[in-house]
């Protein structure tokens, strides 16, 4: 496994350019969350020419719908959800200056083309490790669409949050590369 790279947020086009598919990373700083319903609302708002409730420029969106926090805790379990459900909406958000996305699973060819065009990166967080990842979140506040409950947009502060660069801005794709490498005949 390659050496772990520290990534301080917010992202910049230069930082994103240096992240190569296959590199394990640890994130420090602020990220936003959004999943199905919030994506739908953001893209609908943009199509009506409205402003978004949060600025996307240079941010990273983490696809998650966390469990509610117990009293005295920052957040409940907060692992990644399947990213491909966001594929329809993603190119529109990349056009707004979104530089990073984090979730689980491969992306569509259209999203990967848009990532190359706008210079954005896609990270895979460990799916199903919700309790572990909750411990890497030091602050959480709902900042938009609170009526959506677990699907609201949260601003999270993370420290030492583990992920791996799954698809880089050149379109190198760890899902395809990894599968080819370990496939054997008899399948």
């Amino acid at each position: 496994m390659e050496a772990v790279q520290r990534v301080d947020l917010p992202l910049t086009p230069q930082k994103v350019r240096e992240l190569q598919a296959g590199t394990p990373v640890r994130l420090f700083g602020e990220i936003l969350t959004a999943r199905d319903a919030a994506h739908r609302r953001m893209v609908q708002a943009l199509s009506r020419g409205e402003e978004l409730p949060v600025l996307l420029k240079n941010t990273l969106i983490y696809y998650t719908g966390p469990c509610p926090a117990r009293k005295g805790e920052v957040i409940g379990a907060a692992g990644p959800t399947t990213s491909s459900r966001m594929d329809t909406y993603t190119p529109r958000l990349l056009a707004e200056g979104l530089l990073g996305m984090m979730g689980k699973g491969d992306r569509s060819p259209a999203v990967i083309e848009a990532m190359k065009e706008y210079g954005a990166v896609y990270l895979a967080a460990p799916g199903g490790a919700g309790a572990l990842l909750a411990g890497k979140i030091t602050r959480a506040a709902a900042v938009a669409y609170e009526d959506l409950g677990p699907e609201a947009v949260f601003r999270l502060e993370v420290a030492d949050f583990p992920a791996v660069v799954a698809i880089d801005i050149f379109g190198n794709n760890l899902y395809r590369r990894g599968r080819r490498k370990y496939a054997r005949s008899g399948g």
Partner: protein
Amino acid sequence: MREISVELITNTVAGLCREANLDLGEDMLALIKEAVSKEESPLGRSFLESLLENAGLARRKELALCQDTGMVVVFAELGQELHITGGDFNAAVSEGVRRGYRENYFRRSVVKDPFLRENTGDNTPPVIYVQVVPGDRLRLTVMPKGFGSENKGQVAMLTPAQGKEGVKEFVLKTVSQAAAGSCPPVVVGVGVGGTMEYAALLAKRALLRPAGTKHQRADLRELEKELLAAVNNLGIGPQGLGGRRTALAVQVEVYPTHIAGLPCAVNLSCHCLRHKTKIL
């Protein structure tokens, strides 16, 4: 006639919801540990190790194993000599889910209507299956089913001529298409026989067997073994990032079927396969 109250049913379901979401079974932990020792991909191994850490943390800190605490599926085996008193059985089970999710800060993941999509706010209703059996006991199993993997299941109405080869091909196609989206390593539940919907239920019931246990029938044991090897040869690996452990187990259940058909269903579970049972 033996009697039990709906309150007892509600309390039991609430308790099972809590246990299932906080405590990954020893069967799954053993399979993940085995996968750590066999996985060739370093990235895959480190992911599998993080799952063991996650399970420990969930138990210690009373945090859900996964934020997708699922739609709850309840399997009830109701003894025909048992009388339920004090109210409605289905309402009692629903109330148990409501309480279990509220008291433990689990995510509400259920919407009222598949088109209107407004959250019900309490993770109800569950999906409930009741089987009437001999005896005077009630056996309750609660399975919170996450939708990352649930979304990737498929049903096929194969022909008798397609036989075992057709089933193998279909299972492989389903897992291959599911790939990273199903949160591998997965447990693959396969149901063969019955009718269309019954095959799907068999596939889900196959996931209730202690994970990694083999079928009692020798030919089906052999089929499970072949399928597991073939699935792992796909190279999808932990999290779909490449590796030799795409599935932890393949579990097949069968049922008599019609002379004209071979229904086959695949129900996938992520590595967070959760279910707890209590007999009242």
